[in-house]
């Protein structure tokens, strides 16, 4: 039975309510949809502190445990993106666009150069999510940069929408996908799919990387929204960091294309509270309880 978590105002609540729901229904559920209405809203300190307390770096039952920011960096390495105080717009002058482009290109190139070394870390032998986004198939530099392609495409859409005075109704990833195959396409070179491919046909592992298999973007009413599909969402060790990383990725795309940030949704084909690794049902109870406690001053 599919499960639906009522949309939440911020990442912290979205994570907490998802964990609560799956825990209350047995610890493992299929097709769980989680939505964050405002992905850039501040996190809630009590919830974040509870997650951080559980995710102390090290090993647990032989599995590596990584802090939230480390998990988030697998999706968007914010530490390597030095954003200028600019948001892309068709009205920016060439010098301003150059500054914005330089920040993005630095990120792409620096990360791409790092890939061979990053792949020597535990768990990275098949590449990284962000590597697959900026250098497909993700283990070597100078692969296909899907993210740069999406930035270019969305900027083109932004320009076209301005001209048509109809930007607010344009959809990408939904209606626009069908549109690009027809003569009414605003751009004959338009991408057929605005989503990001993170899953390869050669990925045969049933568990582990890649758990994130697809990221889709939809533009509606001037807002860029995201849906990420996970085939296995580990709710304690990964889900919070995944939400943070996805929100950062969405913010990056919004800044680079001039659209507002819409909602962030995550569809987990299997959501797992990992109670076997975290003290059973009582362990998850304690985690949920600690997330509700106020943070000491």
């Amino acid at each position, binding site marked *: 039975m599919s499960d639906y978590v009522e949309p939440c105002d911020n990442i912290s609540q979205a994570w907490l309510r998802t964990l609560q729901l799956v825990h209350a229904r047995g610890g493992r559920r299929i097709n769980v949809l989680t*939505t964050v209405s405002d992905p850039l809203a501040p996190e809630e300190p009590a919830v974040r502190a509870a997650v951080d307390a559980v995710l102390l770096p090290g090993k647990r039952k032989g599995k590596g445990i990584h802090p939230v920011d480390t998990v988030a960096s697998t999706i968007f390495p914010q530490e390597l993106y030095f954003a*200028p*105080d600019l*948001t892309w717009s068709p009205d920016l002058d060439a010098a301003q666009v150059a500054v914005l482009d330089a920040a993005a290109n*630095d990120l792409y190139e*620096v990360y791409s150069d*790092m890939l061979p070394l990053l792949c*020597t870390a535990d768990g990275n032998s098949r590449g990284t999510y962000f590597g697959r986004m900026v250098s497909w198939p993700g283990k070597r530099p100078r692969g296909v940069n899907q993210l740069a392609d999406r930035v270019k495409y969305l900027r083109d859409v932004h320009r076209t929408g301005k001209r048509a005075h109809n930007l607010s109704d344009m959809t990408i990833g939904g209606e626009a996908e069908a549109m690009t195959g027809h003569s009414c396409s605003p751009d004959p070179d338009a991408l057929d799919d605005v989503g990001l491919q993170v899953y390869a046909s050669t990925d045969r592992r049933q568990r582990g990387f890649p758990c994130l298999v697809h990221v889709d973007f939809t533009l509606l009413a001037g*807002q860029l929204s995201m849906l990420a599909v996970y085939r296995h969402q580990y709710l304690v060790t990964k889900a919070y960091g995944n939400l943070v990383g996805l929100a950062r990725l969405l913010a990056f795309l919004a800044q680079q294309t001039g659209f507002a940030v819409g*909602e962030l949704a995550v569809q987990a084909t299997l959501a797992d509270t990992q109670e076997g690794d975290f003290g059973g049902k009582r362990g998850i109870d304690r985690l949920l309880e600690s997330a509700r406690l106020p943070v000491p001053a």
Partner: protein
Amino acid sequence: MSDYPTLVSMNENVVSSSGAPLFFPAAPQSAQPPAPSEVPEQAPAASQDPAPETSCDPGRGPTSIELDPAAVQAMSEVELQQQIQQMLACLRRRTLQEVAAGDMYSDGTLAVDSMTAVWVITTFGKAFRRRLVRLSDVDPDSLRSVGSVAKLIKQTTASLMAAGAA
């Protein structure tokens, strides 16, 4: 807002944030990358020794950094720390003073996140045309500060010297 057919009512699109880069550390707005003179400025407070030159083309950014392997091997750990701080200035397109004003780690040198540490090691590795380490073999504590990264690079490049001599 996502829709779900079993729900009776859903709010229409909520007011969302503006798309401003709230998640990112905003750099000062500038239509130009930092001028060459801004990048390799005065050495940080850690040492008064003159900082070694870093070749960083501000027009091309951090991937243009070129390090001389012989010079790297001749550097002390303190000099390597200075070198790394210059590289961070190039990466972040900030001045050396701005970089040096960052948080300190418990070893008294600038704190870095592990992703940035990996970039530093990658960049040194490019000078030697090889991967300096396997990350799975590296103690995570070696990726937490400029000092610990400098120490790691000193150790790994020293062994390269020994291998070359043999």
